[in-house]
């Protein structure tokens, strides 16, 4: 197989970064940063997911087709969220307390 074999230290490094990010996101959660709490939590989660995808799942060394598949799935999930929320965020009437 024409696969790229990553050295083990790459995996250990990514692991360390993931653990640190977990620690970070938990710590941040205990401070009231308003809207930034959600942004920070999701931002850190996206970063963790990205390095898992790039290195554990070898996407950094994969074909353009694999990249297209990964990005496509994220984009399509984005369509679901964006167009649905375009309804919820523009309903000028409130039906809840």
């Amino acid at each position, binding site marked *: *197989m024409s696969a790229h074999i990553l050295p083990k230290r790459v995996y250990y490094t990514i692991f360390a970064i993931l653990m640190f990010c977990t620690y970070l996101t938990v710590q941040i959660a205990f401070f*009231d940063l308003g809207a930034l709490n959600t942004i920070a*939590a999701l931002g850190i989660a996206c970063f963790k997911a990205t390095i898992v995808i790039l*290195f554990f799942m070898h996407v950094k060394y994969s074909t353009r*087709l694999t990249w297209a598949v990964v990005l496509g799935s994220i984009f399509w*999930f984005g369509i679901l969220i964006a167009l*649905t929320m375009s309804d919820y965020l523009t309903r000028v009437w409130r039906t*809840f307390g």
Partner: protein
Amino acid sequence: MLPEAAHQHHVPGLAHHFDNLEQQAEATTLGMWVFLVTEVLFFGGLFMVYTVYRNWYPDAFAAASHSLDITLGTINTAVLITSSLTMALAVHAAQLGQRKLLMLFLVATMALGAVFLGIKSVEYYQKFVEHHVPGAGFNFEEPQYAVHAQIFFSLYFVMTGLHALHMIIGFGIMTFMLWWAWRGTITAEYYSPIEIAGLYWHFVDIVWIFLFPLLYLLGRHAH
């Protein structure tokens, strides 16, 4: 061009409708990636439901989230990340033809997965005892949030439950991989089953990477 009848030698692991192992590996890897796309959209529907109701009921969601055990949740996150490491190391061992190491890392991945599920069961039991399971016996301590907190807990059980189901399926896959590794089917030339099992396992990890902050970390700062 391959004359049909003449398979002079059988390439171990090569299915007859593929021309060579490389084509087969590329096809099976692409197949797993396409399957993961479907999983993104499958879980994505649940994240959609979450997004709407988090947007509608932020305070009730924060209050309900606060009642989850953040220590257990964090430990579980660490456990699952570690299992991703052991899975990546399993693939690495397979690529180098290191059969015993491969089996060791597969077992380690499964063990860590079992720890995750064990801790999850403890959390579910806690929720049951606290009457936070949606349904007839539901009771939330802050009555002004009770109705909407029930939506949070419904999402909690459905999302983590579906995630746990995927982990159990992952166990099944790992067991197969362990058996194949033990039998010597996996070699440095033919290890794509381990690779694609790894893709699946990492995906399950990624789902948790998002579930953890969305379910556990809201409202930590308040109250």
